[in-house]
């Protein structure tokens, strides 16, 4: 299935999308907030493609879950649905300057340091990390300023990467290690707001349920493994956690058939998948913190996928429901959950996926020097989430409940 793509002209440094707002950091440091739904509605397409358009850009959740299984199992319905996505991919989805201008809610001065290293939106707060620390400001505001005019200092710890979940901000702080900043309001949270989780160098932090994976160029990568506290009275889990152990990627991948055959270029982990990229393959381990405490119960080898000529260096990598994204010096490689490859040549200014969002999990934002590309991947609705090797798995109902409290 062809990937859908919206092109927005302009010179940007970063983007975020959340609850119907598209935030763009222009290269001069201003923040432009757009009404995302209005922008999508402004694109003219035949009425019969509205469902595909809705799922592709406004509500990526729509076609996931068990409720559609009977329809997907019906070959006729399935083919009609696939054709709608295919036909939509043939439509021009570019945004003209006048369309863009009509959807601007506000262009405002940037209340954060700029150029930053990373941003994250969690519980309607925008967190911006940079060399000088972390600042926060309220966002998604319907008032005159979608982002508060003033930002507040959270911490002065230098930030290379941020990732928020469960009211905790995971901070990749380079040679200072991996930190957690707990901004929950409970009494226990007030005591130890900032915790050093891993002392090893950290470039990138990502959540695997309530555990954390730290990626680095200077070590093999580490997982801070947590168990969720059992909820009382049969309630669904709410993200309460207890630290269990630290595992190096070398330990995690020790059972991999390819272990030791090729030097590691980069490791990363998101949600239920931990990946190790080498010169010719991505090895994949499935992480399951719900099964039990033994190594064998928590880590399962899923094999590997071929990685042809990833370039001299891997700059960074990430995972989404739709697949894996690997940045090399020459461009971005996307391997989707059907094992199809898409190569986006050229050095991006920035790029992002949104695996923890509710509506935009299928999007990949790639900023180039004169435009933003918003790709929408829609093949994953039809992939068995339990069996998939590439891309994180769509969470179970219990996990969804948990996210709805955490996001």
């Amino acid at each position: 299935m062809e990937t859908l793509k919206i092109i927005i002209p302009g010179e940007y440094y970063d983007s975020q999308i959340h609850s119907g707002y598209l935030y763009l950091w222009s290269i001069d440091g201003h923040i432009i907030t757009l009404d995302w739904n209005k922008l999508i509605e402004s694109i003219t397409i035949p009425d019969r493609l509205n469902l595909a358009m809705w799922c592709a850009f406004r509500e990526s959740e729509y076609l996931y879950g068990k409720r559609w299984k009977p329809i997907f199992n019906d070959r006729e319905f399935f083919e009609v649905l696939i054709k709608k996505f295919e036909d939509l991919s043939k439509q021009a989805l570019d945004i003209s300057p006048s369309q863009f201008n009509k959807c601007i809610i506000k262009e405002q001065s940037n209340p954060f340091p700029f150029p930053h290293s990373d941003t994250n939106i969690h519980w309607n707060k925008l967190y911006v990390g940079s060399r000088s620390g972390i600042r926060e400001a309220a966002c998604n505001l319907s008032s005159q300023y979608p982002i508060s005019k003033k930002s507040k200092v959270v911490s002065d710890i230098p930030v290379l990467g941020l990732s928020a979940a469960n009211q905790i901000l995971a901070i990749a702080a380079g040679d200072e290690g991996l930190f957690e900043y707990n901004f929950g309001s409970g009494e226990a949270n007030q005591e130890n707001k900032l915790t050093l989780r891993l002392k090893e160098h950290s470039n990138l932090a990502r959540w695997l349920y309530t555990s954390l994976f730290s990626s680095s160029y200077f070590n093999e990568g580490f997982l801070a493994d947590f168990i969720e506290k059992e909820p009382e009275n049969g309630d669904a889990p709410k993200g309460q956690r207890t630290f269990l152990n630290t595992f190096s990627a070398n330990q995690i991948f020790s059972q991999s058939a390819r272990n030791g055959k090729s030097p590691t270029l980069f490791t990363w982990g998101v949600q239920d998948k931990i990946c190790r990229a080498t010169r010719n393959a991505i090895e994949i381990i499935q992480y399951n913190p719900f099964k039990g405490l033994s190594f064998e119960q928590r880590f399962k080898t899923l094999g590997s996928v071929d990685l042809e000529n990833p370039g001299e260096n891997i700059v960074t990598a990430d995972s989404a429901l739709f697949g894996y994204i690997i940045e090399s010096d020459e461009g971005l490689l996307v391997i989707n959950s059907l094992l199809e490859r898409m190569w986006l040549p050229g050095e991006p200014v920035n790029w992002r996926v949104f695996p923890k969002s509710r509506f935009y999990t299928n999007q990949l934002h790639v900023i180039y020097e004169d435009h933003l590309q918003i790709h929408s991947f829609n093949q994953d609705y039809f992939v068995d989430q339990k069996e998939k090797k590439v891309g994180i798995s769509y969470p179970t109902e219990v996990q969804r409940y948990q996210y709805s409290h955490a996001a």
Partner: protein
Amino acid sequence: MAEFEAEIEVQLGIIYIHKTDHRNINPNKSQWTITREAERECFNKAHPDWLDQENYSWGLHFENGKVTYLGITKSSEPSKRELFLAKFEDSSKNHKWHGYPADPFRHNQDIPPEIITGIWLKESFFKAAEIRKLSRGQLWKL
């Protein structure tokens, strides 16, 4: 001839000291690969225009108008890399400055703060993609 730490007045009332340990293949220090004269030029361009709030000045070395490498990583690092950034300090607060090739990829304190990277982005010394990689400590080459 024995190495010495030459002190040269480079601006009115400002002395620049060439530190020998960044030129004598000390395995624990990054090493300049540009001449002493180019090192002073690098400082003169950096100071005071690229002075940050913590009183460090950040330098770049140019050839034909383009930023080029000025040093290499300390030899005790597992892999040798070329360095393009210099960090200068007046550690005794007596207007006597010295500097070294900085390694932003390895050390947080060698990543320039936003006030400096913002100037460099505006002046187009670096592409926006390079500023992103510099800010995130990501691996890249000039």
